[in-house]
């Protein structure tokens, strides 16, 4: 599903922030991406959600060569990817409901279905009373839940989450992780970048460790459970 081969990445003319990154994630896997701050976790995720092209190497997503994909093909590939951004990236002028509804509307879903599905999901993440609230009136944890709901509303093939439980209490963090595991059970491939060692220990899955722009996969590729 996701294959990186000797991938390097740099921002503009700056130094390379990722070097020779090679890994493969098969459909249905659940992985953690860990590493210290500045190791390149967010950069690696940016490559995975196709916000950035690599400076070298090969990236294949859902069987398509990203380097050869045309612009419109990238948009189609992105529809299969749900992303929870570290800074949430909610649209300030839209309510929680409209933020979560965005991927569905972009995909051309019927409005009646949009309202129903989004309301259900927001209720599930504990925001039933904040459906029409604007992001500015939500706490950090509530915004994070809206961001998570937006990422999973379309049941993406690949779910990427950058510190998705960073602002949540332990109980809610566990609940959302169960949501990710549930999505994983029904076929969504999940990659979570996190600092939270407790979460990694409590919910064991294969770990990819980034250090100084280089990647180590544990357990080795092909042996992930």
């Amino acid at each position: 599903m996701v294959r990186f081969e000797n991938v390097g990445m740099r921002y503009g003319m700056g130094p390379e922030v990722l070097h020779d990154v090679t890994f493969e994630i098969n459909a249905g896997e659940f992985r953690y991406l860990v590493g210290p701050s500045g190791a390149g976790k967010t950069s690696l995720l940016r490559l995975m959600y196709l916000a950035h092209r690599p400076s070298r190497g090969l990236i294949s997503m859902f069987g398509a060569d990203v380097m050869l994909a045309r612009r419109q093909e990238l948009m189609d590939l992105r529809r299969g990817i749900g992303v929870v951004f570290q800074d949430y990236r909610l649209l300030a002028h839209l309510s929680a409901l409209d933020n979560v509804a965005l991927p569905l509307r972009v995909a051309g879903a019927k409005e009646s279905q949009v309202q129903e599905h989004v309301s259900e999901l927001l209720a599930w993440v504990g925001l039933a009373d904040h459906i029409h609230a604007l992001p500015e009136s939500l706490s950090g944890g509530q915004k994070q839940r809206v961001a998570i709901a937006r990422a999973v509303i379309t049941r993406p093939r690949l779910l990427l989450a950058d510190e998705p439980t960073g602002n949540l209490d332990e109980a809610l963090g566990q609940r959302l992780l169960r949501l990710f595991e549930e999505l994983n059970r029904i076929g969504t491939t999940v990659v979570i970048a996190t600092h939270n060692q407790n979460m990694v220990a409590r919910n064991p899955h294969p770990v990819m460790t980034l250090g100084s722009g280089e990647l180590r996969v544990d357990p080795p590729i092909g042996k992930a459970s």
Partner: protein
Amino acid sequence: MARRVPAVVPLGRDAPSRFLPWIFALMVYLAVLALTGVLILHAAVERWQRGEVDTLTVQLMPLDGESEAARLVKLQDLLGEVEGVSDVHVVAQSETIDLIERWLGAGNVPADLPLPRLIDVAIAPGFGLDAESLAFRLQASMPGVSVDDAKLWLDRLADLGRSLELLAIAVVVLIGLAAVATVIFTTRMGISIHRNVIELLHLIGARDSYVAAQFQRQAMLLGLRGGVLGIVFAVATLYGLRHVAGRLETPLAPDIPVAHWAWGLLVAVPVATALIAMVTARLTALRELAKMP
């Protein structure tokens, strides 16, 4: 009741959304007036060229020793025999003096000033009478006769009318180009202001056409809003002008177009403005979005 889906890109809150309708209103107002000018001039030029106002003025200069009355009767008879002449009217001498007094002042026309007798000759509609050959024929029969041909200056007037017509068309085209330039500028500005929103939309799989649709819808709404405003002011102005023009009692005065198709054409201007704005916004947005990663 279905809940209204909010605009994904909040273009309605940008400064251009506040001033653009007024700019469109001004453009539509000017375009409608210019277009009306084109229609009026076109109709007038056609009318002048058709010769609908064909009239000739024949002058009979006084000759020593000859009876003016007898010469007038003879001239009327001669004119009556000319094919195409529909009416012959001898202008009273007092009217001629009135005309001169406008220049010299009342009572300043000397009694011994030799004044010609004027005869208005009406030509049947659509009948092309050659003034030069008429003058030749009349002068062969009667000395002291001359013919003033209105056709010559009407032709010059028609040339002027055609030039003004082209100028008015150029003005309409320039207004259209200005509208296009304004939409291009505001669309680019909108993309620049909302780059973060657009990037996010791209990341969740929105195609350029989806994002461009946000801009084209907004441009069309602003174009329509401004267009309606502009046409209301323009129609009010035209009715005012029509009222003023109606008080002019001259066959040369052009008519404000009243034909249904003419009004339809004018009302189409705001619709065309909205369409131009929409298409321009879409094409500009697509071109700008293609530059984004």
